[in-house]
């Protein structure tokens, strides 16, 4: 199954904002957002994603 344009745009926006905020690699941020969303059973919000990615990569907020 693939993701539609809207879902990709949303993911790109959230991942881009988080990558910029944390100074993290975008590929890794996307993968981690996918991981966190899979665990929650829904897409993570920016706040949830930021916290998840920061903890996963050992970055300070």
């Amino acid at each position: 199954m693939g993701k539609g344009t809207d879902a990709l745009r949303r993911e790109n926006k959230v991942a881009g904002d988080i990558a910029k905020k944390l100074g993290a690699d975008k590929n890794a941020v996307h993968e981690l957002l996918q991981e966190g969303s899979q665990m929650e059973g829904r897409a993570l919000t920016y706040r949830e994603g930021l916290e998840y990615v920061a903890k996963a990569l050992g970055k300070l907020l």
Partner: protein
Amino acid sequence: MRHMTTDEFKIDLNLHHPSCDPETITAALALKPWFAKENGDKVGNVTHKKTAWLCQFRRGTFDEGFATALEDVVTLLSDYEAFFAEFIEQGGEVELVLNSTVDTAVEEGDKLLELSLHPWFLKQLGEHGINLRVQAWSAESE
């Protein structure tokens, strides 16, 4: 991890399992994950409901190394066939992620990506019960 440049590929191997210890996977496959969490681990407010083990398996450029990287995938599946079979039988999931970069400095109607995979390779994935995800990324400007 770093972002990908033009003509670069990256192959990731992602494993998920209801209960397996990530260290068992690392030891069994002799590969180092860049992210590994066990079922029950908490990351921020997210509790992992299954074990996650994410590994960057190969990366390189399409001119050099892509064909070899696909052969390495098949070799890995073959060498650890028993492990993957048992892993999947226990409810685990194995996913191969082919990441490719695309040049976004294009004109309307231009082709952005062409990825042809030999039936031999796809057969190996299918026979081993491996999921395939293909992702295209805009390349980092050089």
